[in-house]
């Protein structure tokens, strides 16, 4: 049949069924992050609509304090840089350096979460006080959940590279690269969130 052609393109051992293909787990992760970003997009859209069409009655307007979220923004941006350092170090096979940078990144993530909790406890409003309060907690809480997950993953890969220096090497960068991408994504969302929620 004219439509059949099984010889030209690939030269490989025909009797063997074992096939290999390039690694596209990263591709899958990016697709997943796009999906995750859409969840945030939905929340942002809801928040902005509320802001436009459901203005709060007088007296229920809260001024958000800026110092803590600004500090948090800096923390996350720095942590993106330190994570990048960890990757660089691993690429040069400096495993212990890379591990130090990883743990430092996780440390920054934990500080971020502590600051966020501190902010929560000192806010003059609670989850159900009004529409703005609910949206505020929903947005920052959902983001905080992402930071928590990210921090846990950083701790896990940092720990893995420790117990058997073989799990995370310049030959097997995927776990680190995947978590790094995720972390940059969470940082990016935070910047958008910071602008929309605190600055606008």
């Amino acid at each position, binding site marked *: 049949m004219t439509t059949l*052609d099984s010889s030209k*393109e690939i030269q490989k051992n025909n009797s063997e069924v*074992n096939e290999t293909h390039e690694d596209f787990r990263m591709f899958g992760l990016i697709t997943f992050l796009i999906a995750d970003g859409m969840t945030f997009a939905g929340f942002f859209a809801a928040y902005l609509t509320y802001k436009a069409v459901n203005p709060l009655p007088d007296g229920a307007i809260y001024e958000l304090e800026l110092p803590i979220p600004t500090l948090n923004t800096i923390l996350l941006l720095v942590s993106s840089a330190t994570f990048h350092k960890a990757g660089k170090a691993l690429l040069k096979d400096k495993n212990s350096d890379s591990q130090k940078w990883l743990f430092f990144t996780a440390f920054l993530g934990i500080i971020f979460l502590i600051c966020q909790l501190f902010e929560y406890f000192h806010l003059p409003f609670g989850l159900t006080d*009004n529409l703005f309060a609910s949206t505020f907690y929903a947005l920052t809480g959902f983001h905080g959940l992402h930071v928590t997950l990210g921090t846990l993953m950083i701790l896990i890969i940092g720990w893995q590279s420790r117990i058997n220096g073989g799990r995370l090497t310049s030959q097997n960068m995927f776990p680190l690269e995947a978590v790094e991408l995720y972390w940059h994504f969470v940082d990016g969302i935070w910047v958008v969130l910071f602008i929309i929620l605190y600055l606008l």
Partner: protein
Amino acid sequence: MTISIDPQKTNNESLQPKGWLRYFSFSLDHKVIGIQYLVCGFLFYLIGGTLASAIRIELASPMSDFMPRDVYNQVLTLHGTIMIFLWIVPVVNGAFGNYLIPFYVGARDMAFPRLNAVAFWLIPPSGLMLVASYFVEGAAQAGWTAYPPLSITTPQSGQIIWILSVLLLGGSSIFGGINFIATIIKLRRPGLKLMQLPMYCWAMLGTSLLVVLSTPVLAGTLILLSFDIIANTGFFNPVLGGNVVVYQHLFWFYSHPAVYIMVLPAFGLVSEILPVHARKPLFGYTTMVFSIMGIVVLGLVVWAHHMFTSGTPPWMRLFFTIATAFIAVPTGIKFFNWVATLWGGKISINSAMLFSCGFIVNFVFGGITGVALAQVPFDIHVHDTYFVVAHFHYIVYGGTVFIIFSSIYHWFPKVTGKMLNEKLGILHFIITFIGFNLCFAPQHWLGLNGMPRRVAEYDPQFQFVNQISSLGALLMAISTIPFLINVFLSVKNGKNAGDNPWNALTPEWLTSSPPPVENWEGEAPLVEEPYGYGKEISEQK
């Protein structure tokens, strides 16, 4: 880095149960997972269909006499939810997608076999949970749209379970979508160009893009809704300052694309089936591809046509009317391409072909009423009446379900190695076609004359037409019987099919029936012209 995908190794065949038992086990083989999707979906379809019959029995008389009113609402909710999230979406994407896509791209499995299995195994537990929620105190009764404030003011334990199970099903479909995108874009056999892919691949690519972009928004919305229920926040509760229309926007941002998630794969499947049984190349391949992508883009921006009666401002109405009308263009292109594919072909009248042609007829009808509904004055007249019910059943049942059956008739020989009985199949088609039209066509009339949907009681003047509709529903229920008999008889002692009973050219037919675990002995074939039928015929002469 490279990863080895050897199905024999990943599946560890020696540990897998043999024969039909392996369909009940955790398997990583895309073919097994596809069949699992299909069978699981069909079982839920039987449950959803029983509920539909209950609804139609209730509506055979004007009073609420068969079941109490709140039970009617619960049954209606469960019916709608099951049919959409547990039957149409998983089957038309998960079942056929898993079975066919790896063949079409020339691969031995999906890109992420484990993720694939996880996506499937989320379905049975969450489906059972949904069905079980009917028996808890206060089952969900706000319809499949779960509009607040109804969904936050009616009894709540059932509604919470409803939300949870829809969230899990949404997760399952996102995982599936990621897998399809990666498989189609990245896992193609070397030498296979995008424009040589069978049309179903394009349809699944478009569908998966919609899944990935819109399902997360539904998930976020339902999370907010559950906060309203559990934590007493007021996102969607007007009493607490919230806004129900925001819920509608977010919900329809998913659920309008969702209608394409249900029907685009059907477009793809019908484009595979028609050329084979008409012995002609698919007409207008390139325009088909572009119309799919056009539908994806337009599908994402027309959601508010479901909200013309929700106080949307005039500019919004205008924009969404025009955008919706534009969708008719790519859809129309596809319709004319299918007709042109049939035109002058050597058409064989068999069950697969009949169901596909039934699809085209019903779909045109549903499409036309859809364009009508996009016109604001008309929509305001018939919104929330049976006209809408008729419209979407023409699409989801007359369209997608017809294609599911058509596909089963078409691919059954490949999957099992046995032929289905054509006489029983044609009988199945005739009863379904008559029953379907008898059931839903009169509902247009009901809607135009003002019978509201989602209520158990109605004005006695509508009784006669409702009884015709119920009669149609009865026929549809009966039509399942020849189908089930057919499947059971054929699996047991059907005629042997051979590898390629239809003389088709798409790659799945170039392997044995049923296919071996690794899909092909040796290397995957490169099919450059999956629809090269004209040539084949001239070669035979």
